């Protein structure tokens, strides 16, 4: 039955036709801490670029999506077994930290590195 599916899946060439633009990918996004309502205690940086992942997870998960094997299985389950099982989701894969300078309620000044604050790449899982 996998062969039947394989025949239905558009070949690599067709795969890229049209749906490329809405495929799972990283989107640049910048906010200010003022917009997040935190500017009353964060001194630096002024702007922060968390980015985000958005887009459809194709039925054939190409290498660039760093998908685990489970995502391939989940796709097959959605296709062959039970459509209530959703297709994999487009989520961040790699993150980067940022350093923040902030003032604490007691007047101390804090330099702190927060992990996993910037999405650097995406995956389907």
């Amino acid at each position, binding site marked *: 039955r996998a062969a039947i599916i394989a025949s239905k899946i558009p070949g690599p060439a067709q795969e890229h036709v049209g749906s490329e633009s809405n495929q799972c990918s990283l989107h640049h996004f910048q906010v200010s801490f003022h917009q997040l309502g935190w500017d*009353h*205690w964060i001194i630096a*940086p002024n702007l922060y670029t968390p980015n985000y992942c958005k887009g459809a997870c194709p039925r054939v998960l190409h290498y660039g999506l760093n998908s685990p094997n489970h995502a391939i299985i989940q796709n097959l389950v959605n296709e062959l077994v039970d459509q209530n099982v959703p297709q994999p989701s487009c989520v961040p894969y790699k993150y980067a*930290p940022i350093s923040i*300078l902030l*003032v604490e309620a007691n007047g*101390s*000044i804090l*330099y702190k590195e927060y992990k996993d604050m910037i999405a650097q790449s995406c995956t389907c899982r």
Partner: protein
Amino acid sequence: KVGQPSTALLAEAPTLPLIQELLEEAPGKQQRKPQVQGHPMRYMLELYQRSADAHGHPRENRTIGATMVRLVRPLANVARTLRGPRHIQTLGFPLRPNWMAYQLIRATMVYHHHFHLAGFHLSCHVEPWVQKNPSNHFPSSGRGSSKPSLLSKSWTEMDITQHVQQRLWNHKGHRVLRLRFICQQQKGSEGLELPWHDMSSLDTAFLLLYFNDTHKSVQKAKLLPRGLEEFKKKDSSLLLQRAR
């Protein structure tokens, strides 16, 4: 929820690590940013610019050797001005040894070694404050001598890690680190009455605490069962090909 103040949103999801920390560290919205200007702010801005770029990305070549640095200002200095050329301030620094989440890796006193006040030239240093017999030296700390290292032309940073760790760090609850900040009028300006009371308002000395997170990062993914591990290694493309 549009329009809700971010702190309300934060309160709804206190379980996430960052949110929890923000709730602990972020003064409430109603609380204006505590006005911290002057030397402490300038010092930390310089430390920030040395450690991160304009977008907040930590620099690869940063030298602070910690993931968190807290500048603690003295609670209130009890100035005991001796007659004549010496001036002693007893400085109290509140410590909140949240040792569960952070490991103290370094503690230093940052102060002006030399400075001018109302036309007088002063030379200053820091000593431990001990209730009974004030001892006038810091135990030499393991990491380099506790001899002050001149930072920029005006700041001196003295390592007092051992002093803090021995006396205060492993005790529960809030503790206060007490130190004496002693200034001496330099030659040539004796005799005149120095306005020592001006000293107490200056930010002449503050404490720097360097920490590393003890948060275990997300548990390393457990090793895959042997079989699947082998499969991943040798035939990882098999599944992909078959699906394709």
